[in-house]
């Protein structure tokens, strides 16, 4: 397995995913480094049943989950992490600073953490539904239903704001 190419192609996407899940830059950097170190250490166990990229995303996703659990054993996860982190340590995308961003954030508090994580994974363009099912270790049918449910809820929560979104 060519780890040089894997790192080149996926360190960026995995960092973005970790950042979305953990909402903390330092924690996201650690997660990327740990993901590749762990993957490298376990490279002999990789049997090629999934794509190497999917395998990496699965390691990264599980690492992020365990980091969230360490931070909050009650596992509400990232929401708690976000509140406890200092403002300086959090990336602040433009939308967050805007009025619409704030309204979106408030509206999205109605999402379950698991749904938010699923939608964060869905943002990763390199992952198809089949890949996502492999990352989450569920059947493609179950994943499809979960995505459908989360998307519907997202639409319902944002209904009052949709006019403002292009």
């Amino acid at each position: 397995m060519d780890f040089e190419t894997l790192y080149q192609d996926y360190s960026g996407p995995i960092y973005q995913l970790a950042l979305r899940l953990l909402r903390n830059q330092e924690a996201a950097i650690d997660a990327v480094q740990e993901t590749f170190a762990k993957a490298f250490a376990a490279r002999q166990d990789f049997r090629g049943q999934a794509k190497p990229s999917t395998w990496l995303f699965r390691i990264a996703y599980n690492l992020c989950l365990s980091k969230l659990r360490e931070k909050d054993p009650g596992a509400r996860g990232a929401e708690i992490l976000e509140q406890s982190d200092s403002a300086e340590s959090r990336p602040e995308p433009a939308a967050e600073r805007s009025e619409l961003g704030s309204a979106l954030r408030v509206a999205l508090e109605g999402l379950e953490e698991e749904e938010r994580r699923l939608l964060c994974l869905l943002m990763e363009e390199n992952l198809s539904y089949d890949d996502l099912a492999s990352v989450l270790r569920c059947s493609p049918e179950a994943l499809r239903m979960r995505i459908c449910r989360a998307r519907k809820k997202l639409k319902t929560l944002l209904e009052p704001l949709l006019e403002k979104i292009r």
Partner: protein
Amino acid sequence: MKESCPDIKEELPALLDGEIKGANLLRMIDHLAVCADCRLEAENHRRAWEGFKSLYHKEPLPLRLRVNPFSVRESFFDLAWVGRALAWTPALAAMALSAYLSVSPVDDAGSPNDAERIPAAGRMAALNWDKLLNSPPRGLRAAPVAGGRQARLLAAPRLGSNQPTLSVMPVRDAGAGGFKARLRLDANERGLLPQPVEESKSMEVKS
């Protein structure tokens, strides 16, 4: 037969994710072309998704992650490369000695934690600083640092100066015409790796 709106609406998220293919895709496109209600539903899904994504703007990759640690060689993390790098010890020591002979001595009280004699050092000492710079050992790149008092040999030439380096530093006169050189392999001097990787080795070289 007219498609049922509930069925189409159920598939809209998958359509937006590009997961509907072939005949099903054509079927949905045909339906959306004639059903304003489903088109509005699809547009609302799209806007909701855009709203969600806008909260997670892509951040540039931090500096610490920009250097590919696997560019050195595949076994970077298992430390086997450290062993291979240390195989250069005799040559590095001799070159450090030659570099040392061409500049004024460095006064350093550092004590060696491991010592080995390099019988060929006397012969190798004939190498001069220019030769070290112009003809470094294969796979390494030499660069003068600290005003020419040290030889810095880069183990990963194509990664530039941010990467693990092998530094050979003549540290003090060992008496009877010999010198002690300290070789330090610092693979994580800028926090590039998940785990600190450091190895120090000192040697005594006789000229």
